[in-house]
């Protein structure tokens, strides 16, 4: 049990660094000169088009985001597989081919259903 309490203390120390810097030290040392431009939400340097909460956006953003998540998660599965590829051998290669084939079916479906074409 002693080992775990050390882990907890380490965790608290690590946690306290950003908390202390952001909420305690930074307000003390930084200059505070707010202006209208500085308080605007950051939109990659472009001027904000409208208020953040009262804004409709195309459902296609959502579809693209969902597709992105699927292929993003796929990559997570690829990493440990790639590290162990030599030990897994052909079995692992075929297994991963099946896994990707299943994902490609979904990709192909989304493509043909015109999810990827922007109107």
């Amino acid at each position, binding site marked *: 049990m002693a080992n775990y309490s050390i882990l907890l203390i380490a965790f608290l120390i690590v946690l306290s660094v950003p908390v202390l810097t952001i909420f305690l030290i930074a307000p003390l040392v930084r200059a505070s000169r707010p202006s209208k431009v500085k308080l605007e939400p950051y939109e990659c340097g472009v001027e904000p088009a409208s208020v953040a909460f009262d804004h409709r956006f195309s459902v296609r953003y959502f579809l693209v985001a969902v597709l992105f998540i699927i292929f993003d998660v796929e990559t997570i599965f690829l990493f440990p597989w790639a590290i162990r590829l030599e030990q897994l051998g052909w*079995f692992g290669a075929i297994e991963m081919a099946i896994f990707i084939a299943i994902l490609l*079916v979904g990709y192909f479906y989304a493509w*043909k259903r015109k999810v990827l074409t922007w109107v």
Partner: protein
Amino acid sequence: MTWADLLFLLPEIVLSIGGCLLLLAPVIGGRNNGVAAKWSMLLLLVATAAAIYVAAGAGIPSLALGTLFVADPFAVFFKLLFVVVIAMITLLSAEFLEDGRYSAWEYYSLMAFALCGMMFMASGTHLISIYVGLELLSLASYILAGYYKNETRSTEAAMKYFVLGATSSGILLYGMSLIYGACGSLHLEAISQAVATMAGNQALIIGVMLLGAGLCFKVAAVPFHVWTPDVYTGAPTPVTAFLSTASKVAAFAIFARIFYMGLHSLEPDWNSIIATVAALSMIVGNLAAVTQTNVKRMLAYSSIAHAGYALLGVLAMSEIGLQGVLIYMLVYAFANIGTWAMVMLLRRREYAGENVDDFDGLHKSAPLYAFAMVVFLLSLGGIPPTAGFIGKYYLFAAAISAGYAWLAVIAVLMSAVSMFYYFRLVVAMYLKDGAAADVIPSRQVRFIVIVCLIATLTLGILPERMIRGAARSIAPIVNLASR
């Protein structure tokens, strides 16, 4: 992974490939053809059934994927039941898919993936393989529940089901992780060996409680039942039939396997919880059903009560109890699908056929179907000579012989209450005059009603084969539990 593995996994492989093909068919073929989709799905189901026979005859020990998966008689029983149920639901769904407003291929594809998930659940001997199967089933069910995508009620049902279902999956997973922490393994046999010496371990008990809570959500037992009425009412009726039979049966398959194979020696720790849940399900489900005027809602509450009855079999922890669960799932599936098919027969527009009044005077316009409905309701109530009697007989006998006489008393009393609200429909059909709802001229739905009628009566009058089949199917699990 060996060639034998592929053989044992054949039904699941067939279904996965078939499901992908069903998904790709519309984008390659380019047309939404409900009839072709239906026949493709039925063909896939026949292939799956054949694959189940091949896998079942492929030898012992029937383990695949290491030891994550087993094709034992217990799994085969449930898989065959699933295939039959999904085949019936395919025919029930055909009618609303053939008019072309909703995409048929994707519907059947989701159904195939759900079936694949259920098969993994029935075969899982490891909490992870069980969980993956459960998620595959759940994700497909969430979409299916919202398949009337232009109807507010259906979308609302899907949303509620998704949010609550995802939460319960999280709870289930947390329970599994605590069990893993306590036992050092997720394999049911290893868990059963580990827990034998761990009675009273706090982490383990909390893990089992959370696992039980997640499972109770899936079988819709009180107090985890609140989603049931809304989801069952809002979903398209064939999907409701799917949720209340196939999905529930699959959940009971894993409930029984986990508790009989993995956690039997912890019984003193969990039996009072399951007993309370069973009692509450029977009481709340049946009493709430009494006041409903919407048939779908009434049947939803009655399905909550049925989960309570079936839990008696899990609780009993005996051969007869497990046999009771299997028999009850079989007879419940036929009676329940028959009832939902009747609701569909009386359909007007998207949802109707739902009010008790819609059944008024049905015996004049369609005497055969009125009679079939009476048989289904008698079976759900557990009155001989219908099949429901055999199921309840086994469950109640198991409860009494395991020392839960008080639960058996509640079960019998609540069955009497259930006959009250089931008979409101019978009264409407036989004693009331009225503008009986038209019976829609769908041959497929009528066919399902007749199939369920014949099955319910045959299994009730000649139950020997069913009882012997159930006895054979539980053998691997009971041997494990008594070891």
